[in-house]
C-alpha cells in the first residue's frame, strides 16, 4: 500500500519576500520592462535570424527540404518564441507556437505537409513585417486560420 504523507514545507520565499521594504508590484514590473527594453534589439535580431533560417531551410526555395527532419524547424520556432517579447503585439510568437504545434502533430501522425509548412512560413513573414499594425481581430483571424490548416492537413493533436 502506498504511504502518503502531507507536510508543511518551509516557504523561505514567503519569509524573505514579506519582509519590510521592497518594491511595489507596479514599480517592479516597470523596472523589469525597462530592463527588457535593453534586450529589444538583440531579440529582434534573433527573430530575424531564425526566420531567415526557417525560410532558407524549410521554405519552398529549398528543393532538398523533403529529406530533412523537422527538428530544426521546431528549434528555430522556439527561438522566435523566446525572443518574441522583442516585437510585442505582433502575434509572431503565437505564430511560432503554431509552427511548433505543426511539427509536433506531424511527428505524432507520421505525416508531413509542405503546403501547411509554406502557409506557416508565409504567415511568420507577414506578422514580422506587419503584425504590429494589424488589429487584434485581424491577428486572431490569421492565427485561427493556421490552426485550421494544421488540423485539416496534418490532423488532430
Amino acid at each position: 500500500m502506498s504511504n502518503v504523507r502531507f507536510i508543511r514545507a518551509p516557504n523561505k520565499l514567503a519569509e524573505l519576500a514579506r519582509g519590510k521594504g521592497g518594491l511595489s508590484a507596479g514599480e517592479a514590473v516597470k523596472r523589469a520592462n525597462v530592463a527588457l527594453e535593453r534586450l529589444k534589439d538583440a531579440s529582434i535580431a534573433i527573430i530575424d535570424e531564425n526566420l531567415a533560417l526557417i525560410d532558407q531551410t524549410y521554405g519552398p526555395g529549398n528543393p532538398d527540404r523533403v529529406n530533412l527532419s523537422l527538428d530544426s524547424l521546431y528549434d528555430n520556432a522556439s527561438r522566435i518564441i523566446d525572443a518574441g517579447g522583442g516585437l510585442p503585439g505582433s502575434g509572431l510568437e503565437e505564430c511560432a507556437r503554431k509552427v511548433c504545434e505543426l511539427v509536433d502533430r506531424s511527428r505524432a501522425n507520421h505525416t508531413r505537409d509542405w503546403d501547411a509548412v509554406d502557409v506557416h512560413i508565409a504567415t511568420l513573414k507577414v506578422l514580422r513585417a506587419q503584425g504590429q499594425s494589424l488589429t487584434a481581430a485581424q491577428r486572431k483571424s490569421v492565427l485561427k486560420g493556421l490552426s485550421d490548416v494544421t488540423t485539416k492537413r496534418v490532423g488532430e493533436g
Partner: protein
Amino acid sequence: MTSLRRMLDGDKLKLEGVHFLLVDDNPHALDIMAQVVLGFGVRNMTKVESAAAARQAIARGGIDIVLTDGQMPEENGYQLTRWIRHEASESMRYVPILIITGHTPQSDVTLGRDLGANFTIAKPLVPRVLLQRLFWLSQEDRQFVLSDTYKGPDRRFKRLGPPSGTDGRREGDLKGEVGEASEPNLSQAQIDALMKPAKVVL
C-alpha cells in the same frame, strides 16, 4: 479590475534577499529571465545553461527558487524538476519550481504538475505574469505531498481557489476572498446532508 490591478497598485514584494536559480540552454532567453528578475530587485542569482549545472548549483545549496526552461537538450526542465523533488538534499527538495516553456501543450503542463513543479509559465516571459506567480508563491500554503509516486505541492490546488486577493487564472475559479453573505446561509440540515455519509443504493 482584477487581482493584477490590485497587485500593481499596492502590494510589495521584497526579493533582494531571495536567491534565484535561472536555467535555460538559450543564452538570450537566460538574459531575458535575468533582466526581468533584476528589475524585480533581485540581487542574488545563479545563471546556468544546463540541467547538469543546475544540479550542481542546487547541491551547493542556498537556492530559494528555481526558474527553468522546460525544453532543453540532454536533460530538460521536467527531468530537473523530478531530480529536485526526489534526489536533492532535504533542504532543497521543497524549493519552489517554475517551469517556463515556449510551446506548451496541455500534456507538458500536466507533466510539470505531476513532477512537482509549482507553476508553468508560457514564453515569451512577461514581467507582470512572472511577478504575479511570485506573489502567489509567497502567499502559498499548499501542503507538500510525499508518496511513492508523487513528491510536490498538493495538486488539488484548483479546489482551494486562488490566493486571497487574486481572481485566479481559470474561468471557473472562485474569488479568493469571501464577502458578506448575499443569501441565507445553509441550514444545519443542509450542511448535515452535505457532510453525512449516505448509503449508496445501486
